[in-house]
């Protein structure tokens, strides 16, 4: 009875008792969720267009941020560094398409997945060789101050950088949505996502589309990398954090952009709430490591297509 009370009732009593703590935890969770969302967004873009599950997306984030920071440390103006990094990510997309994807065309998805693990390892080593393995702070003028907000039940602490990240993410998603709906390239991308053969038959060049979609994913990775870097510094631990985008995808659905966003927010908020109200008092903490994966696994049992996934996963 005692244990049941501790698990089922007590955390909620605490939440009601200290609403400002609850709100702070929630905001902290949502902001880290934004980061997961941005990584997951890159996954979804590539998965939709080419059916490839790009394990290297997390490394893309890191690699883009490393290049950006490295260039800035060399004295390049941030905007110029941003443009150059986009160029690098496009070149990378091109190289991946020519050197990895094209020779492996028509292989099992699982083979392609393992190939992207190879890409991930290569880029990790390459990035470190180029720019070194130190933690680098990003200074792009993102305001970083602690704000105190007065709410009805008390005062809460908010980092302005977190708010900024949220705004950028919302902006990015809007831009991408507009891009997908109103530009010829965006329409072509959606057509390819729906049906490769039909897209080919109306004259959409599949090869170029793949390069474009990988480049767009690279751009999203850069945005995610800069924000993540501004928060934590650009460091190689980012790649493990980025692995969490995988459960986010399962939650949100592999083919849905809104799913990636909502999934990221749910995972971010959920793991922080679980850690603070159940993990630390009952389980000894550090539950953030696995919470997202276990939730994803439970989801796989009951709703394998995720919250927003359109297509039912092939059952076995």
């Amino acid at each position, binding site marked *: 009875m005692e244990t049941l009370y501790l698990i089922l009732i007590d955390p909620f009593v605490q939440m009601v008792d200290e609403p400002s703590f609850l709100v702070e935890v929630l905001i902290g969770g949502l902001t880290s969720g934004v980061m997961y969302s941005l990584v997951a967004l890159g996954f979804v873009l590539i998965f939709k267009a080419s059916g490839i*599950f790009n394990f290297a997306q997390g490394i893309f984030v890191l690699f883009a941020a490393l290049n950006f920071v490295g260039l800035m440390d060399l004295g390049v103006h941030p905007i110029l560094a941003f443009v150059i990094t986009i160029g690098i990510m496009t070149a990378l997309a091109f190289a991946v398409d020519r*050197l*990895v994807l094209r*020779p*492996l065309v028509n*292989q099992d*998805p*699982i*083979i392609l*997945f*393992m*190939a992207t*693990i*190879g*890409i*991930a*390892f*290569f*880029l*990790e*080593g*390459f990035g*470190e*060789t180029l720019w070194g*393995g130190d933690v680098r702070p990003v200074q792009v003028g993102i305001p970083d101050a602690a704000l105190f907000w007065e709410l009805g039940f008390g005062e809460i602490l908010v980092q302005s950088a977190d708010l900024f990240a949220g705004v950028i993410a919302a902006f990015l998603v809007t831009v991408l949505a507009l891009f997908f709906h109103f530009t010829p390239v965006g329409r072509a991308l959606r057509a390819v996502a729906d049906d490769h053969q039909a897209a080919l038959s109306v004259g959409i060049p599949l090869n170029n589309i793949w390069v474009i979609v990988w480049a767009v994913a690279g751009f999203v990775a850069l945005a995610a990398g800069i924000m993540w870097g501004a928060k934590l510094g650009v460091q190689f631990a980012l790649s*493990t954090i980025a*692995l969490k985008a*995988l*459960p986010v*995808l*399962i939650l949100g659905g592999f083919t849905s952009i809104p799913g990636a966003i909502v999934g990221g927010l749910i995972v971010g908020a959920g793991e922080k709430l679980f850690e603070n109200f159940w993990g630390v008092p009952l*389980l*000894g903490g*550090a*539950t953030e*490591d*696995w919470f997202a*994966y*276990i939730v*994803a*696994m439970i989801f*796989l*049992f009951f709703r*394998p297509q995720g919250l927003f996934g359109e297509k039912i*996963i*092939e*059952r*076995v």
Partner: protein
Amino acid sequence: MLYREAGQFKTSYSADQAMLTIPLDRWFVFALTAFAVIGVPLLASEYLMVSILVPVLILSIAALGLNILTGYCGQLSLGTGAFMAAGAYLAYKIATNITWLPIWVVIPLAGLCAAAIGIAFGLPSLRIKGFYLAVATLAAQFFLLWLFVKVPWFVNDSISGVPPAPPRSVFGFQVTGAAAGNEAKYLFVLAFVIALAWIARNLARSRIGRSWMAIRDMDIAAELVGIRPLPTKLSAFAISSFYCGVAGALWALCYINSVEPTAFDINRSFQVLFMVIVGGLGSVLGSFLGAAFIFLLPIFLNSAPGWIGYSVASDTITHIEFMLFGVLIIFFLIVEPHGLARLWQIAKEKLRLWPFPY
């Protein structure tokens, strides 16, 4: 010239169904085994035996395990490290609590426990496949390691959380722990390797192995010809986890001499996956070749610059190692998806026709 298939007539079914039908192959395997058992302990240096052969052999067992799951049954797993950890922690727990149990029983028992855990995490594979399953195995990786670190029961409430391996003996020779003799350790590990490799090879060509391969190649067709996916997949998970558990137990007790979580983190899972890809998906020989290759490559990279008179910073070596692993993976997937084992086979086929190819 010596290696000929032609003229090798069989007069009985059992000869026809033998594991190695060509006599030269058979003698080669027997000779290699005999050399490994007798020759190596007499000839090899201490460093070669303890620091290279023991870990390579243990990782071969893990690679065999993953190969059963990924190579034969087609279910991708990124949780190898966690199943190895399960074997290691439970072997420690069993060995320290049931002290009268001989160590050669403890390790397979720990493997069985790992198999049970493997079945639990393999359950989602009944509904999903491909990379969805990879995420489920990642759950095993992170959750199990967390569990072993956070629950002191597994390490008998050891204060440091990293208890030393309990010293245990077989036939009066100590085989586990830091004080064990090199030869004893090596032979103990080798015994497991020989037994498990033999079992794996026979499993792969028996009914169960064939049903794994059928599920891998096309699950719907396999179901149509009467293979039940549920027992087939779960048996692959169970046997694979058993192998990984045994490998983890040996790794902790015979190689690093302590039970520590960092030895079984996600990098270990990737390392074993690379062994399987480079060695050859769906090949017993490939598991050994891959394990040796992936384990020795960093050692080679570290010492190679010294041989030609260069000195390179060790972190540069690590970066190059990462890049090389990535390139190798992609290279093998593109050029030779069946890995080193397939190259070996091609060499044998060439040799068969030598010196008069068509």
